[in-house]
């Protein structure tokens, strides 16, 4: 054990000496600062408060968080895989439309879909009113499931998170070569057997990655569970911090949440332990899609229509109706500014985060070092930490840096420079990088894993310099994954709330902040306009990137 430990120490030291790895190590430490801050909270035991939590609410937090994460995982996996498989295997009327329609729920923040469905399905909403008017029922004459429950939260979150699975699964299914089908047929494997024994297992890394992302997103969600009255870890953290006024215990709760995520991540790694899913080259013919007609075509059409209908179209119609009611008071110059702010912020964050992800993934691929491996794990944890906790984890070190900078400039130049780190967009971009790096790394790695080391070796042995290998092999093959990564980060930042709320500089607002402020003030109708704008701004990259993915897939066939 001690020998192993000293080995680890040695490898860290060696990494520090290598300038490239050393720089990356420092960057990694900066990015895992909030996680470190959270875990060090255990130095200050809060036994009395934990006693209280354990006898009252802790069990609720644990059970509900686990059920939510697992439920959303299963829900997203089922919807995402089904839709992706159908779209990459069959031709049917409307398929072209569904290729991008099924991605649209990605642009819908979970808390907004929660608000809209509550409006639709509530006792006073259109659905129940219609039922009562049609059948002449009154209150208590019928039972109607309550959307504001754990089940409701699982359903609405699955409806907007399944695209994480779908995006990765579609690329994976589309790239399975025709030779696989042929080989399976010669071995007498049935069509169903092909699906369960060949196609799905091959796509497993992609499916699991997507599911893990959805689960982490569910674990970190605050807006939806808070509105639905489900006590989870995130609501517990806020309650402990704000209600009980105990920041240390709140950090300790956060560290438990982090441990959950670690389990999800380890599970994902474990699921692909013996497998190196390198493809045998990309120029193999991909499978031709089977033409469907008649009853099957209708069935498949409905199957593909349901997720985007429920996860996007229905809530957007409700939002449109609410927007219509309040259009005049809500659209002004300020509103345009909000759109520009949100778009610019999401775009810069997407670029920065994807570059960081490429940096980490490539270093890991080239150096193949344990240090970078564990570093990648550490920075991935940020995805499940609620934005508020990250924000504070960012504020503490940045404010320290600011104070130091100001003290120095005060004593040397007799002037203060102001809050150059914590009071500017820098703080926000850092928080986003911590929160969303995991999404980008997962996507980039999924792409990189499809480029075999053999390809690199072959190209290099044929005399191609690294630059050319990068340009002619890696860039074309990675494009889809990098674009998906950028898209996911973009929409995630667009929807991000708590960190943006705490860290944004003076006079800087985003659509998400505006929408949340109105909604949390229970002015759902007024919140609809900015909510709709988030969805619309998010649509642009969704459409662009679907187009790009299609082009790459087509280019190969």
């Amino acid at each position, binding site marked *: 054990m001690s020998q192993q430990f000293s080995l680890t120490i040695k490898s860290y030291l060696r990494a520090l000496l290598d300038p490239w790895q050393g720089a990356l190590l420092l960057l990694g430490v900066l990015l895992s600062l909030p996680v470190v801050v959270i875990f060090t909270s255990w130095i200050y035991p809060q036994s009395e408060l934990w006693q209280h939590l354990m006898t009252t609410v802790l069990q609720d937090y644990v059970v509900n968080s686990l059920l939510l994460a697992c439920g959303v995982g299963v829900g997203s996996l089922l919807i995402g895989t089904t839709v992706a498989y159908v779209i990459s295997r069959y031709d049917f009327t409307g398929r072209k439309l569904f290729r991008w329609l099924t991605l649209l729920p990605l642009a819908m923040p979970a808390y907004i879909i929660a608000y809209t469905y509550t409006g639709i399905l509530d*006792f006073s909403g259109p659905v129940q009113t219609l039922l009562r008017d049609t059948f002449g029922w009154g209150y208590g004459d019928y039972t109607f499931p309550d959307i504001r429950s754990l089940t409701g939260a699982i359903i609405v979150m699955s409806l907007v998170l399944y695209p994480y699975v779908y995006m990765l699964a579609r690329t994976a299914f589309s790239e399975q070569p025709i030779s696989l089908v042929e080989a399976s047929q010669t071995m007498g494997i049935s069509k169903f057997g092909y699906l369960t024994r060949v196609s799905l297992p091959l796509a497993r890394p992609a499916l699991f990655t997507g599911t893990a992302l959805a689960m982490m997103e569910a674990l970190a969600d605050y807006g939806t569970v808070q509105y639905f009255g489900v006590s989870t870890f995130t*609501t517990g953290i806020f309650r402990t911090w704000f209600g009980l006024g105990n920041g240390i215990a709140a950090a300790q709760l956060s560290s438990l949440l982090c441990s959950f995520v670690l389990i999800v991540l380890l599970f994902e790694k474990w699921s692909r332990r013996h497998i190196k899913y390198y493809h045998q080259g990309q120029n193999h013919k991909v499978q031709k899609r089977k033409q469907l007609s008649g009853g099957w075509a209708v069935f498949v059409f409905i199957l593909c229509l349901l997720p985007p209908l429920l996860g996007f179209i229905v809530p957007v119609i409700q939002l449109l109706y*609410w927007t219509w009611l309040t259009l005049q008071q809500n659209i002004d110059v300020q509103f345009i500014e909000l759109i520009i702010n949100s778009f610019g912020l999401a775009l810069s964050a997407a670029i920065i985060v994807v570059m960081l992800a490429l940096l980490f993934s490539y270093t890991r691929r080239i150096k193949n070092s344990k240090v970078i491996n564990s570093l990648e794990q550490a920075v991935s944890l940020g995805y499940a930490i609620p934005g508020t906790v990250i924000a504070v984890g960012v504020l503490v070190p940045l404010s320290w840096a600011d104070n130091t900078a100001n003290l120095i400039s005060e004593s040397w130049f007799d002037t203060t420079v102001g809050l150059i780190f914590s*009071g500017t967009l*820098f703080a926000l971009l850092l928080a986003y990088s911590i929160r969303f790096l995991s999404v980008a790394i997962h996507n980039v790695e999924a792409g990189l894993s499809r480029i075999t080391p053999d390809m690199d070796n072959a190209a290099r042995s044929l005399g191609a310099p690294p630059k050319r290998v990068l340009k002619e092999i890696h860039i074309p093959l990675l494009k889809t994954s990098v674009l998906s990564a950028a898209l996911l980060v973009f929409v995630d930042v667009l929807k991000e709330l708590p960190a943006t709320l705490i860290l944004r500089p*003076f006079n800087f607002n985003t659509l998400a902040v505006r929408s949340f402020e109105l909604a949390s003030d229970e002015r759902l109708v007024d919140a609809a306009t900015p909510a709709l704008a988030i969805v619309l701004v998010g649509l642009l990259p969704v459409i662009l990137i679907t187009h790009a993915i299609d082009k790459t897939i087509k280019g190969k066939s």
Partner: protein
Amino acid sequence: MLSLKKRLIAASVTLAAALSFTGSVSAEEVNVYSARKEALIKPLLDKFSAETGIEVNLVTGDADALISRMNSEGKFSPADVLITTDVGRLVRAKQQGLTRIVVSDTLEQAIPAQLRDDENQWFSLTMRARPIMYSPERVDPEQLSTMEALTDAEWKGRICIRSSSNIYNQSMVAAMIQQTGEEDTLKWANGLVKNFARPPKGGDRDQIKAVVSGQCDIAIANTYYLAGMLNSADDSEKNIASQVKVFWPNQDDRGAHINVSGAALAKHAPNSDNAVKLLEYMVREDAQAWYAKTNHEYPVRDGVEWSETLKQFGTFKAEEIPLHRVGELNAEAVKVMDKAGWK
């Protein structure tokens, strides 16, 4: 690769330079950290700017997050004024040494003593009441009397109230602990939870809707939510809100629960003169009238006209307790509600 690296470095230097300019200081300004939502404060701040020429820089957010931000920014914090929507956070800011004493006759004259800090480190700007709201079809107001009476068996399965994570409930229970003691408050909370019609969910407006839908017969909610619904752009909300009535509890003893929104001067305020001007502006009659009209909150100073909707709710006797105790008892209140199983 190298050129890319160089370009990256150049880009980040430019970015850093550009960012640091946004932090530069102009002559006449005041920086506001506000837990009041932008829509409920910006118009007033704009009026202040137009009148005085002092530019107001605003950042809104959760009160506790803003307090953490001030705390970690320390000596160089740009914050001048902290605005919150409850007294608990003001007390917390004071306890953490983030506020300072304001010497202002205007503020002292405008705001009654029980609505400001005993050392004048924070001031209430508006009041909100948290009465009982009931369905006149199913509840005879004669049956209603005090908050304590809501634990009676006749109310079993008939009460709606939001989660105990909400600050208004925390303040209400904290005020009760102050007045009746922790033991009695726990008994009351236990009894109230037993009479819940459903596990708490949604906001105050949702409790009002639940009364109208028949899920429960009475709700406990802040007055300005009901007033907001009555003045909503959505006709169905208006229609719902018109079907409940307000009952003022505890009128024969301690009075109905009220909570306040307020403001404090930051300890390290770089523009303290302008900050005090802003505070004084916010208790001026026209500003107080604006609060009352736009968000249906009760003004802290006498002689300011209420909105029509507030007038309809009627006058009432409000609790009079040292407000700082509400802030100090907040954690006890949460524990009491945890023990009572109030989700």
